[in-house]
């Protein structure tokens, strides 16, 4: 199975539903208009992450990025579909294999403060997991942690401090060292730099890149910041309301986005080279995942929506240049035409 991708999601869905409790069931018996409310956080997503790749996952708040990330990291079960680790379904793994797979995929979170237990010292924060998993002998934990700390740019003399005694950037480094401590192969970064100032953000991003080289790490990089994703990712996946709407390499995706949503995202991204510009926002709000629009989720906000968009869910299909896009318009106009149409309609 050498050619199986490191991590793969196949038709993965995740629904959060609130079951009716007895009282609501009784009320429904009496005719109250109640039904189970289901959030389709992730809806039939296919995603492949190859060894050594940095895959970026972008999309607006609540579109399901974190949920997908969690499922990929194996800490949240899927509702449908399966996640495969080196070709094997995660749910089929047991015992040592399962632990192995779990440790091999680590996660780094957004808010560096809340991911660190405030009552633990750095040495324990980083050292606990390798110790309990027997990755290092008890006596060597300090050395091991010190080495890791040094690697992520923390002064090893700080090991006995508590998280609050560090700055935001340093905390994020602790989080990274903690993840590295269990020798993962893949790291899911969930908005890991969003809370940081640009300069610190740059430091951490550099660290990610260095670590990738050094340890051959693979990243699933979740962010809403397109410029960051563009910079460090080998491949970008754009999500909208639980679905993947477009994928492609950054170069292609950013130069010729195929999906109208991606186009809007890229167009509206502020940039310092683009001064006192005019904004041409997409209208409308992001719909609620509780009752998403029919057909293409984006159709109510899409400037080009046609009748079919309301009815039929567009599938993710190749759109040339190795890009994939889920939009009906490319069928009608051809992939190149769609983006041209999009550009002309907005100018």
């Amino acid at each position, binding site marked *: 199975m050498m050619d199986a991708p490191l991590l793969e999601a196949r038709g993965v869905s995740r629904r959060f539903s609130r079951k009716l409790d007895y009282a609501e069931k009784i009320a429904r018996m009496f005719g109250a208009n109640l039904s189970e409310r289901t959030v389709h956080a992730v809806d039939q997503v296919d995603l492949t992450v190859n060894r050594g790749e940095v895959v970026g996952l972008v999309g*607006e*708040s609540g579109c399901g990025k974190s949920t997908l990330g969690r499922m990929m990291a194996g800490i949240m079960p899927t509702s449908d579909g399966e996640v495969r680790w080196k070709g094997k379904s995660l749910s089929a793994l047991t015992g040592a294999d399962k632990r192995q797979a779990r440790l091999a995929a680590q996660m780094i979170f957004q808010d560096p403060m809340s991911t660190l237990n405030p009552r633990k010292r750095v040495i324990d924060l980083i050292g606990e997991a390798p110790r309990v998993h027997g990755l290092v002998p008890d006596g060597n934990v300090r050395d091991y942690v010190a080495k890791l700390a040094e690697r992520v740019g923390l002064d090893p003399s700080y090991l006995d401090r508590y998280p609050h005694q560090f*700055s*935001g*950037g340093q905390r994020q480094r602790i989080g990274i060292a903690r993840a590295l401590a269990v020798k993962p192969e893949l790291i899911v970064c969930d908005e890991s730099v969003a809370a940081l*100032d*640009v*300069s*610190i*953000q*740059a*430091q951490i*991003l*550099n660290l990610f*890149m260095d670590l990738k080289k050094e340890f051959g790490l693979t990243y699933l990089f979740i962010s*809403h910041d*397109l*410029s*960051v994703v*563009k*910079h*460090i990712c080998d491949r970008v996946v754009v999500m909208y309301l639980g679905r993947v709407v477009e994928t492609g390499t*950054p*170069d292609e995706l950013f130069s010729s986005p195929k999906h109208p949503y991606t186009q*809007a*995202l890229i167009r*509206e*991204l*502020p*940039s*310092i*080279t*683009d*001064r*006192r*510009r*005019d*904004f*041409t*926002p*997409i*209208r409308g*709000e*992001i719909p609620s995942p509780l009752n998403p629009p029919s057909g293409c989720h984006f159709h109510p906000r899409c400037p080009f929506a046609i009748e079919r968009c309301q009815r039929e869910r567009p599938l993710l299909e190749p759109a040339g240049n190795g890009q994939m896009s889920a939009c009906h318009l490319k069928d009608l106009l051809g992939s190149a035409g769609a983006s041209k149409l999009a550009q002309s309609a907005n100018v």
Partner: protein
Amino acid sequence: MTQPVLDVRNLSTHFPTRRGVIKAVDDVSFQVGQREIVGLVGESGSGKSITGFSILGLVDPPGRVVSGSIRFQGEELTGLPQKAMRTIRGKRIAMIFQDPMMTLNPVLSVGTQMIETVLAHDNVSRAEARARSRDALGLVGIPSPDERLDAYPHQFSGGMRQRVAIAIALLHRPELIIADEPTTALDVTIQSQILFEIKRLANEFSMALIWISHDLGVVAALADRVMVMYAGKIVEAGPVDDVLARPAHPYTVGLMQAIPAAVPRGEPLKPIPGMAPSPLARPSGCAFRDRCDRATDICATPPALDLSEAREWRCFHPKEWRAA
């Protein structure tokens, strides 16, 4: 040059704490001209918000404005009694806050919160106040504003709430709006909607605008002039094109180079070395000294504000700069 809307001189706002005085704003001077949009950028904790609050006299105790003058349309605001200040707040200077989820009182309807603002300043009937509120909501692009007046904040999305806040700010057609990172908490597409509206309205009502942000991109897109803050001081200011094209202060340079777009894809980024000093233990002289690759011994003395025509900076070793 006509009289500026706002003329801040040598403003210092300090927070005395148990561990020492935090000089959140330290000898800051700037002006905002009529109809001018001024961007205020800087990293977290540099004093941007406190500058904004100082202008409105809303610094939380124990903080207070310790010195300097704030002249608004020629009128001195520091030392103004609360009562007089109140007639200016909301009426002539309005403010929009960062977090749209927190700025509206969750237990009062949007209408109540708007109407009270009208009534606080103008002696009009409730019906009239309501009509004005409704119009303001319409202005910021909220559909069916009449019904929405009776809704409560939690029934709005983040973007909508921020629009409500903007509508409230616009109720009295203020001469100056201070916007404190109003789009930071919002998604890109929503941010762009808000930026669009603000720009349109500022133009329409000939308002001056101070736009606080840590995102150079947003400021670039919106502002006429930009001011860069570092450790409580404005370290560089000037027309936006100018500053962004040819930054003079090493901090501004560092800030611009640190963003991913500044280097080719896949290349290492160029962060500013070191970290911002703790507000309690700032080095004497230039606060950026420790992180600056140009620093020399002279930097241990406070640099003066260097004024070169429209540009100004506080640095002994500005990056070479030639007037355009």
